[in-house]
């Protein structure tokens, strides 16, 4: 088991390096010049007045005059020393920026993840057990709607309903839960709903089909024949086996939440990591984009790693065959 974990860990690091390399290449090879943005602040008049000498000095200052491989190496060695660099546009230390933004995204994302997964799995189990009833139909319809609706669309729909029509919740904004817990919660209800609905729908559909698959297995029939109580059969025999494929998508669900945070932070004006990334992309702020990719990629790879380990632990068949 330890060897397995170590092997996966090394692979994870290699993949993370590959992601940053691909993004690095993309940013350097594609058109667009961050320095123009930096020097001018979107002021075309000033861009024309910038002397080429000053421009060259700037290029040199950010190391942009080096070959791509050298730039990447420099960036990587700085990262390993714990230095994420400085934002070209915001002129702030990126580590500080991220330490401020990420906890907000993580707070919202974590709650959304817990709600989405637990409710989704519960709904899927109920659907499978009451297959064909109105409960199944309603829940399946809701799940299909959940995976159909765009995150930002749901957000706008909720704002329209709860803020404008009913006036129950504030339209947007962010307050730290340590400052004013009640206000913070009121502001976060809609973002959390938006963020959890997609995962919930997917989880419900998956759980339902896995449960239906498991319910047909011989060992379940045996369990019924032994006269076990329904609850025991559902929880110990069916759900436990159905969980194996469900767990494999948990890593993807975390990725989905990170992706969704880009939208909810825009719709609800939350100054989190997703918003930071979007703005950085707009501003061609390579340094932040690069650090954000490292962070998001790291989170996804790490959660996939945890999922793999969890999987190998739950299902010994995988452990012994190497599990890919």
């Amino acid at each position, binding site marked *: 088991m330890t060897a397995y974990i170590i092997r996966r860990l090394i692979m994870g690091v290699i993949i993370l390096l*590959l992601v940053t390399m691909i993004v690095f290449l993309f940013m350097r090879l594609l058109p667009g010049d961050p320095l123009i943005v930096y020097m001018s602040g979107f002021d075309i008049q000033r861009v024309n007045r910038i002397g080429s000498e000053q421009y060259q000095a700037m290029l040199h200052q950010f190391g942009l005059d080096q070959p791509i491989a050298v730039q990447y190496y420099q960036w990587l060695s700085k990262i390993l020393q714990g230095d994420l660099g400085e934002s070209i546009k915001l002129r702030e230390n990126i580590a500080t920026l991220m330490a401020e933004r990420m906890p907000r995204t993580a707070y919202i994302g974590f709650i959304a993840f817990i709600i989405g997964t637990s409710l989704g799995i519960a709904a899927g189990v109920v659907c499978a057990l009451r297959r064909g009833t109105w409960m199944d139909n309603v829940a399946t319809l809701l799940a*299909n709607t959940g995976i159909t609706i*765009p995150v*930002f*669309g749901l957000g*706008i729909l909720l704002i329209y309903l709860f803020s404008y029509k009913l006036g129950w919740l504030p339209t947007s904004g962010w307050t730290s839960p340590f400052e004013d817990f009640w206000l913070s919660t009121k502001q976060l209800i809609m973002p959390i709903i938006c963020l959890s609905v997609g995962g919930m729908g997917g989880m419900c559909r998956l759980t339902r089909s896995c449960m239906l698959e498991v319910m047909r297995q011989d060992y379940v029939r045996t369990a019924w024949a032994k006269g076990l109580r329904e609850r025991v059969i559902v929880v110990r025999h069916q759900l436990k086996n159905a969980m194996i494929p469900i767990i494999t998508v948990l890593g993807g669900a975390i990725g989905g939440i990170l992706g969704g945070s880009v939208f909810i932070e825009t719709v609800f004006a939350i100054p989190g990591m997703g918003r930071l990334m*979007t703005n950085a992309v707009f501003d061609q702020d390579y340094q932040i984009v690069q650090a954000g990719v490292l962070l*998001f990629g790291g989170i996804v790879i790490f959660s996939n790693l945890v999922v793999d380990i969890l999987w190998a632990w739950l299902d010994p068949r995988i452990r012994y065959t190497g599990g890919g």
Partner: protein
Amino acid sequence: MAENPETKVKPVDTESVSVIPRHSEWRRVARVFFGRRLALIGFIIVMTLVLTAIFAPWIATHDPYKTDLRNKLAKPGREHFLGTDATGRDTFSRIVYGARTSLLIGITSVGISGAIGMAMGLAAAYFGGWVFAIIMRFTDALMALPGIILVLLIAGLVGGGIEIVIFALAFGGIAPQCRLMCGQALSIKQNDYVLAGRAMGMGNLRMMLVQIFPNAFPPLLVGMTMGMGMVVLAEAGLSYLGIGVMPPTPSWGGMVNNGQGYLLTNPELALASIAAIMLMVFGFNMAGDGLRDAIDPKLRGAF
């Protein structure tokens, strides 16, 4: 010496056996697919939207680009089905033309990512060894970023526009298609007919294209149908954020963005476009679900 009627029947019987039409797998798939209500609904939705996109100039009641400042933010009424936006453009017509934008981007980007992803997956599975390792690590890396963020990065850093969005979405879609193809091809490689093909002296390319690809394709068709739903969502998302399709080209995501500011007075601006996005994604998802059930009974109703 009258012949025994039974012996007379016999040759006719064997003949009629050979006359039985060849069993068509696609016909069976079509029967299962159209037999499912939700799949049928999905198919009808998709076909309707495709027809809407093709015949947009005849369906739209107004020119989607024509501004009319005297009629700005008109309420839904007889002249404007769904009202007008802040510059007086007819919302209904823009939604109709938006179907064109959405489908154009969806079909081209899924087509491109499908072609590249399948070629890569096929090569990885067929050649194995270091080809497999390199291609798989590449897809691992691409899939380490949440799909929408990868697409956002590419589209945003290059700058918006339809071609860029297609490029970004196509790039983002390569990895899943590649994985799917690779898995399929790996299991198909085990079959005896592949061995037979090799024994007949087929070349690598011919083996891949004639033996493996056609047998691996059906599940990929499901993947591509589902992919259409995802790509439509992603395009809408990009356009909503302002990095996708650029105005004045009508796009549903961009229209949601425009309408967001008028939720209080003209909610139909944003809500109609949201409904359009949902309709299209729902159609593709349901059609994909049905197709999956029809193609592989083992996966009935699965993810």
